[in-house]
C-alpha cells in the first residue's frame, strides 16, 4: 500500500513529460510549416490584398487567379507565356535524365559489384569522386566540351550532364545493393547461358524494385530541383522551371506581384513535393543512402 502514492506521482510526472514532448514537437512542426503556409495563403490572395505585413493573414476571398496567371500569363523577360514553358522544359529534361541516369548507374553498379579484385574499389572511388566535385570547378571546360560536341543549349546536353553527375551516387547505391545478391544466382544464370545484359535485365533488374524507387526519388527530386546545370548549359528557350522561376521573380519591373510569384514557386515545388509524399520512407532511404556512404 505504501507504494501507491509513489506510483501516482510517477504517472503524473510521466504525463507532464509526454505533454511537454508533444508540445515541443508540434511547435517545431509549426515552425517548419510556416513558410509553406505563408506561400499558400499569399498565392490565394488577390493582387490588392497582398500588402506589406499581411503574410500571416488568411486570404479574404481565396482564388486561384494568381496560380492561373503564374502558370500561363506571367511575363518572364519578354515571354508572357507563364511558368508553364519552364514546366514543359523541365519535363523534357527530367524524363530522359531520370531513365538514362538510373539505367547507367544500375548497370555500372552491377558491373562493379561483380568485379572481384581490389581494383573495383579503386574504380568505384574514382567514380564516387564525382559526387564531391563542386560543379563550379568543372563547369567551364564542360561548357566548352558541350559546345564542341554541339550539345550546348540543347536538352540532350543538359541530360548528358545530369547523367554524368548522377552517376557517382547512383552507382554506389546500386553496387551496394547488388553486392548483396548471392553469387550463386548469377552463376545459375550463367550456366543457363545468360550473358551480362541478359542477367542484368532478365534477373537483377526485376529484383531491384525497392532500390529503383530509392534511386527514382533521389534523382527525381535532384534533377527537378537543379538550377545550376540548367542555367549554365541552356539559354532561355530551354531553361528548366527553377531557372524560369528565378528569372520571373528577379525580372519584374515596378510592383512586385507576390501572389503570382508565390504561386509560381509552389507550382515549381509541386512535382518534387508530390514525389516526396508518395514515396515516404524511400525518400529517407534515398537521401541517407546517397549520403551515409558518400
Amino acid at each position, binding site marked *: 500500500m505504501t507504494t501507491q502514492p509513489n506510483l501516482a506521482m510517477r504517472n503524473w510526472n510521466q504525463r507532464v513529460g509526454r505533454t511537454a514532448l508533444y508540445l515541443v514537437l508540434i511547435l517545431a512542426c509549426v515552425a517548419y510549416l510556416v513558410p509553406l503556409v505563408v506561400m499558400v495563403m499569399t498565392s490565394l490572395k488577390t493582387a490588392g490584398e497582398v500588402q506589406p505585413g499581411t503574410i500571416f493573414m488568411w486570404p479574404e476571398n481565396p482564388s486561384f487567379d494568381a496560380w492561373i496567371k503564374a502558370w500561363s500569363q506571367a511575363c518572364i523577360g519578354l515571354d508572357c507565356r507563364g511558368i508553364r514553358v519552364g514546366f514543359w522544359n523541365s519535363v523534357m529534361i527530367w524524363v530522359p535524365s531520370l531513365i538514362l541516369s538510373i539505367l547507367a548507374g544500375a548497370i555500372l553498379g552491377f558491373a562493379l559489384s561483380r568485379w572481384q579484385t581490389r581494383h573495383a574499389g579503386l574504380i568505384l572511388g574514382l567514380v564516387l569522386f564525382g559526387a564531391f566535385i563542386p560543379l563550379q570547378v568543372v563547369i567551364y571546360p564542360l561548357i566548352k566540351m558541350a559546345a564542341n560536341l554541339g550539345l550546348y543549349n540543347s536538352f540532350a546536353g543538359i541530360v548528358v550532364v545530369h547523367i554524368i553527375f548522377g552517376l557517382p551516387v547512383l552507382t554506389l547505391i546500386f553496387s551496394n545493393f547488388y553486392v548483396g545478391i548471392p553469387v550463386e544466382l548469377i552463376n545459375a544464370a550463367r550456366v543457363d547461358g545468360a550473358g*551480362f545484359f541478359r542477367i542484368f535485365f532478365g534477373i537483377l533488374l526485376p529484383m531491384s524494385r525497392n532500390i529503383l524507387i530509392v534511386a527514382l526519388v533521389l534523382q527525381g527530386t535532384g534533377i527537378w530541383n537543379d538550377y545550376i546545370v540548367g542555367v549554365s548549359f541552356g539559354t532561355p528557350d530551354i531553361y528548366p522551371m527553377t531557372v524560369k522561376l528565378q528569372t520571373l521573380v528577379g525580372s519584374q519591373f515596378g510592383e512586385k506581384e507576390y501572389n503570382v510569384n508565390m504561386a509560381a514557386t509552389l507550382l515549381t515545388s509541386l512535382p518534387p513535393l508530390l514525389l516526396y509524399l508518395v514515396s515516404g520512407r524511400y525518400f529517407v532511404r534515398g537521401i541517407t543512402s546517397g*549520403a551515409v556512404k558518400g
Partner: protein
Amino acid sequence: MPAPAIDLKASSMRPFLTLQFLGGTPASRIVVGLAIAVALTCYVMTIAWTLAMSFTSSTFLPDWDFVGIERYVDLFGSSRWSVAFANMFLFGIPFIFLALALGTFLAILIDQKVQGEAVFRTIVLYPLALSFIVVGLIWQWVLEPNFGLQTAVRAMGWETFRFDWMARSDRVIYTLVLAAVWHSSGIVMAIMLAGLRGVDGEIWKAARIDGIPTWRIYVSIILPMLRPMAMTCVTLLAISVVKSYELVVAMTDGGPGNSSDLPSRFVMQALLERANIGTGSAAAIIMMLSVLVILLPYFVIELRSRRR
C-alpha cells in the same frame, strides 16, 4: 605428364586492367571501361584544365600564358573574394552547428515512441524535397523587412520589433543560415534517428538498471555511440556549404552589395559574367581544396577502421 598451361584470361588483352568479372565477360569490361573514360574526362581532365587555367593570365578567353600563382595572390588580395571566402565560414559554421543540434534534438524527441511519428518526420523532412531556389525565394519573402516578418509583427502590435537582417550587410549572412537550417536539419534528423533505432536495446536496459536518468543516458552513452552518424552529417553539411550556390542566388543574390557573397557565386560570376577565367579558376580550385579538406578526416577514419 606436363600439361600445357592454358592462359584463359588472355592477359595480353588488358595491359592495365587486371580485373575479373567472374568469367570476365566482354560486356562488363566495356561498361566499366566506359565509366572510367567518363570519369577521367569529365571529372579528372576538367579539374586538371581548371587547375591549369588558375595558373594563367586568362581573362575573357582561356589562354596558356602561365603566370605562376599570381592569380591566387590577386584572389586573396581582393576584398570581394575575402568577403566571399570568410562568408563560407560565417555561414557554414553556425549552419552546421545549428542543423546538427536541431536535427539531433528532433531525432531524440521523435524516438520517444511518439504517436503520429510519420507525420512529424514528414513535416521536418519536406523542405529537403524543395529546390534551393525555392527555399531562397520563400525565406527572402518571409524575412524581407518591409514585406514580411518585421512589418507583420509590428502590425500585430509590437511596434518596436526589429528584424531587418536581410537589409543589413553585417547580418545578412545569418539569414542564409536560417534558411539552410530549415532546409537541411531534416536529413540530420533522419540519419540520427536511424542511428538511435540501431542502438542495442540491451544498452538501454543496462543503463536503466544502473539507475541513470534518461537525459544522462543520451548524453553519456547514446550520443557518443552516434558519433559516426554525426560525422557523416557534418561532412555532408560541410560539402553542401562549399557547394551552396542556388540558395544565395535566390535569397540575396549576394547582396546587399556583395556582403552575402559565397565562393560558389564568386566563381560563377568570374567565369561567366566578369570574363575573368584565371581568377575564377583559382577560386574554383580553392573550392575543390575546401571539399578535399572536409573529406580528409572522413577518409582517415574510414581507412583506420578498415585496417582494424
